[in-house]
């Protein structure tokens, strides 16, 4: 995204853009509409000696409902480039006003914009994006009467995801190394993999680097049928466990292949779980990276 930063540097170097006349002069009718809408009853904004509320400053130079652009400013080139690069989201993050003096009805103003900064690429809760800052100065003749420093975030909106995706990271993560990664990769692809010795064929869970029967380090795996029987289980109530709603069931499941494995029993009430209960494996995506093999009630 160097080209975006190059463009930003160019736009910033151009300094203040042309002073553009506001669509209409400061006037009593617009002041009255604004103060009524805001519920501002300050007498200073009423009657023959009324001044314009300072916070109205941006009103005088707004383009109006038709959104007509009087003249393109260099800032527009930068914002268009961000849109084209996919940073189509926009949210205002900062707005500071500086008022040099009160304005009175009848004054004709101009405004000019200067781009002052662009930072990024930043990771934000909304998505990755750039913060762009600019400064608007309003003039009466050549006298600066007010200034505004404005910052917004142009971000790349996160892609829409199905409900099963895009969840926050599941906090209970396994440590994985070269001896165990086949198991977790299997879970991601919907396979319950049991380590099998490449020489003597012995099945083993949990897995390890060396076959305890023949010392072989030639490892392979078998894909389990996915059925099992509850050998023991617990129902966890207290204390609370991160990433889990209590109560939940954890079981030692005995597989027909001859090994045991630990996992949650899901899709049934904890009170229905018992030793000897047939279960069937199911694979559950806990977040975008981790899939766990879990167990649901199965056919006897």
């Amino acid at each position, binding site marked *: 995204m160097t080209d975006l930063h190059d463009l930003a540097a160019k736009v910033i170097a151009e300094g203040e853009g042309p002073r553009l006349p506001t669509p209409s002069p400061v006037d009593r009718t617009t002041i009255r509409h604004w103060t009524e809408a805001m519920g501002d009853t300050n007498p200073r904004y009423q009657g023959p000696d009324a001044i314009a509320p300072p916070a109205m400053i941006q009103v005088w130079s707004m383009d109006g409902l038709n959104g007509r652009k009087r003249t393109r400013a260099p800032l527009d080139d930068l914002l268009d480039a961000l849109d084209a690069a996919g940073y189509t989201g926009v949210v205002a993050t900062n707005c500071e006003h500086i008022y040099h003096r009160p304005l009175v009805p009848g004054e004709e103003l101009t405004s000019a914009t200067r781009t002052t900064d662009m930072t990024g690429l930043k990771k934000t809760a909304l998505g990755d994006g750039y913060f762009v800052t600019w400064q608007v100065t309003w003039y009466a003749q050549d006298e600066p009467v007010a200034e505004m420093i404005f910052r917004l975030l142009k971000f790349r909106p996160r892609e829409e995801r199905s409900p099963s995706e895009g969840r926050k990271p599941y906090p209970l993560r396994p440590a*994985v190394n070269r001896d165990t990664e086949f198991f977790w990769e299997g879970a991601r692809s919907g396979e319950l993999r049991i380590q099998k010795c490449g020489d003597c064929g012995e099945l083993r869970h*949990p897995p390890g680097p060396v076959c305890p029967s023949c010392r072989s380090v030639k490892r392979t795996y078998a894909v389990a049928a996915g059925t099992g029987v509850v050998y023991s289980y617990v129902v966890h109530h*207290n*204390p609370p466990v991160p990433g889990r709603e209590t109560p939940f069931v954890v079981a030692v499941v005995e597989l027909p292949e001859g090994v045991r494995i630990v996992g949650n029993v899901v899709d049934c009430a904890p009170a229905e779980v018992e030793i000897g209960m047939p279960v069937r494996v199911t694979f559950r995506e806990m977040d975008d990276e981790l899939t766990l093999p879990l167990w649901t009630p199965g056919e006897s």
Partner: protein
Amino acid sequence: MAGTALAGIGATEFSKNSGRSELQLAAEAVFAALDDAGLAPSDVDGLVTYTQDSNQEIALAREVGIGDLTYFSRVHYGGGAACGTVAHAAMAVTTGAAEVVVCYRAFNERSGRRFGQPDAGLGGEPSSMGLEMSWHVPYGLMTPAAWVAMFAQRYMHEYGVKSEDFGRVAVAMRRHAASNPAAWFYERPITLADHQASKWIVEPLHLLDCCQESDGAVALVVTSADRARDLRCTPALISAAAQGAGAGQMMMTSYYRDDMTGLAEMGVVGRKLWEISGLRPSDMQAAILYDHFTPFVLTQLEELGFCARGEAKDFIRDGGIEIDGHLPVNPHGGQLGEAYIHGMNGIAEGVRQIRGTSVNQVADLENILVTAGTGVPTSGLILTRG
């Protein structure tokens, strides 16, 4: 170990919030143990603790004023280290590596890091330990109560054991603690109904199946039996000290062995203790059995040969573990009643029983068996009147 003895015991108060650092607790317990033995810090040349203890041996030596150390060691596997510290110390004394070894354990386990709280980082690193935990932690099986409950459920299924059978252990421990002024639950006994009504922690374990969480420290002085005889208190001779891990051993989750109803590692310790000491279960007049969770008290009675498999429930129902029972267990109230100091307070009670100074003294006691944490690689002692 023959020829070695426990010559001093010391402890802080047992509380829920000590209000001081773990190093200060350790120092206070060591001073108390040395005073009890009639020794000075300058007499100490060895220190042993648990791998989990946050106080380095050298830091403790600086605080207490111990000078040169010729032996220091740490024993692994949580509460399974308790009697192992004494085993290491006794071996050091026997080999001449050191003359006076202090064993210590100090923690703010209630006001600081609580072992019963889930730690999402347990499966964090791909060390052998992290990988082992990783077969269980992702499923939320990550607290000591849950790990033990998995064994307990199978044990209940195989032997027709009921929750009330576990509850009787809790009731006995609280009854013992009720007459022990040092116990947190002094004068606060419970009934079996209280046990049954207490909330679920992890089924099949109720709250009252779980030991306390405690702040405190205990220290023990190990030296030669000859030297101990010249010191202030009656020596508790170390007739045997042993560590043990079983085939297919894991930390609290040895669910992949053929038999899930035993504690193979405690069987290893028991056999070694009987072999070293030449004694038998019937030679024990009392036992200190590690009671972080009630079900493993039953399992230990069976693994150590005090009753047959599946019969511990009957042994306990018949009053076997009461002070006047067949095998008084944890006269101080254990970790369910006195305090959870990772098993070290049980060793101190073993020494008091040998000296004849316990508040719940067992009559005519010659030998007492002491065990350490269960479900993990563990350890045990046989202490004998000198």
